[in-house]
């Protein structure tokens, strides 16, 4: 049974990728819930007068928060909510709508689900402009955190 909130999952993924960024998580978390973005939006478009060096500063925290916060937990919780609605219960969906900190999921991830989440994580990292090795590392960290619940 997966029984952790979004914040703790995010922390687990970030700890696996770069523990040095953990002190920044609160700030990134706050920024994200003030202006939620899809992981692909993290790939900043090239601006005429920009430095062109945006990619030189790689931070894991924004990607982890955007992916885990929206795609995994919200997606899984939406699935759960749909199941719940089919059973006549809307409580899970209400939790999703609660967003930050309250977007709790109580979901058991099967092997094939974890594999699908891993693929999604990899795709999200690539969409955010990460390299292939970075995308693989990110997928592993997400799978480990979710499978560890």
């Amino acid at each position, binding site marked *: 049974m997966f029984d952790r909130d979004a914040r703790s999952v995010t922390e687990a993924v970030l700890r696996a990728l770069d523990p040095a960024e953990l002190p920044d998580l609160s700030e990134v978390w706050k920024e994200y819930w003030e202006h939620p973005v899809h992981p692909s939006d993290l790939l900043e478009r*090239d601006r005429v007068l920009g*430095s062109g*060096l*945006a990619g030189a*500063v790689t931070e894991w925290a924004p990607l982890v928060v955007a992916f885990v916060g929206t795609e995994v937990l919200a997606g899984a919780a939406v699935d759960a909510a749909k199941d719940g609605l089919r059973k006549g219960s809307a409580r899970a969906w209400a939790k999703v709508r609660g967003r930050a900190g309250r977007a709790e999921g109580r979901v058991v991830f099967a092997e094939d689900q974890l594999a699908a989440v891993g693929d999604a994580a990899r795709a999200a990292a690539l969409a955010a402009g990460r390299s292939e090795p970075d995308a693989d590392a990110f997928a592993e960290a997400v799978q480990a955190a979710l499978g560890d619940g």
Partner: protein
Amino acid sequence: MAEPASSARFLLLHLSLGAGAMFAASYVFAVADVWRGANLACVADATGAADPVRTLVTCTDRVSWWQGLAVLGAPVALVVATVVAAALVPAWLTRRRRIAERDLDPTVAETLRRLVADAGLSRAPLWRTAPGDPFTYGSPPRVVLGPNIYRALRRGHATAVVRHELGHVVNRDVGRTYRALLAVGLFGAAVVLPLALSRPDPGFAVRFALLTAVGALTWLAVLRTREHDADRLAATWDPAGMTAALAAARPPRGRLPWWLRTHPTPAHRLAALHTPDRVAVAESLATGIAAAVALIETAAVLATVLDGTVHGTRWLAFLLAAALLAVPITTILGTRPPRSRWACGTALAVGLLVGSQLTPRAGPWLGSVSFSGAGVEPGAALTAVPPWTALGLGVVLLLGCVGWFHRPHAVAIGPLLGVWFLLLGVAVDGSPLNPTATTVAPPPPNTRQAGYTCAWLGATGPPAFARPGLAEHLLRADDLLLREIGRAWGTETARTALVRRCGLLIRYGRQP
């Protein structure tokens, strides 16, 4: 410290835009009918005057003077509009990009202080925050860093990115970049777009498109070069950090070739980090094109302004224009070593040759229209020159340009260009292949009668040419009339002035 290479390209960009603006103004004011009313008013004044010929010439000279200034006014107007727009941009950008101040925590503040000290800046820029790629704007300069950069700085990372932005500040290219961006935008909106929508003459459209392309490509080169300059400067403060940052930078998206991009690829940036910038062939070619157009237009304007006041106006106009243009040419091409003297010299010569043929004054539509009463406008069309003469002119220009790259100095290129363009003008004007050269004929009596004839033709031309039969008759009489007028006038200058005024009026009469 030597001026960064981007300074020369900024100058090339402004030269290209200035040439483009003069080019467009020359076309609009010479070919379009905007001066018709003023010239016809001169005819009306002359008809009732005691000395109609002198009245007509004096009046049309005044109109010509204003026409010349209008051509010069186009680049001046572009500069003024750019400066005004540049003053408004920082406030607009602050709102648009949601740029905010940010309290710096002690670690970040200390890091930034150290980076500013390394850059040798006496005054730190203002630190701002906004999402997205770091950039710098405004005066005093404001460096905008995303929240991710601030977080990275807290951990001791991302200093190379900040150093790169400080490189822009030290190179003083921030204000220049925004002004260049605005100048290009205003040129596109106020010059290119209206002309494109006006369905211009195809010959003009091709020439103007080429000149616009030179300006656009130069603008992109300016943006890329300023990044190289900032990288190089940042690398002098922290070589390893800058190399690592460029190695980690993400390649730009899309499939555009490098020369159409606003930023060089990280691979190009890394390669250029320790390579001194040299004058490229493309740069020489673009400089030649822009300089030739600007030189011919400037000479024509100077000739108009000096007309009738200085003996030998034509020589003076060309030499003065060349002396003016020698300064930007030398700054753009003469302050760095060329990749190859022969290649760059040939490219400069080809550019000058192409530019001399691009200008509207080399076009067929200016046949009988002139700004200058003294016949000093450069008739630049090489097609009107015998092939051996054209070849000789080309060889002289080629050897001159290649030789100049051995010791590039404004004092050398000025006379070279002045004399060469003057020779081109003389060769074209004196050529038997030039149809307009025959309009100047030997002198003779009865000036008053010729003046009256000319004034009558100018006054009655437009309505008369609306009737096909009469128009054909008058067109047949056109050449004879001009010869007659030429004979009728005493001094060469005055005779040429009158002939060209009549040509101007007749041409207006031919307008549908």
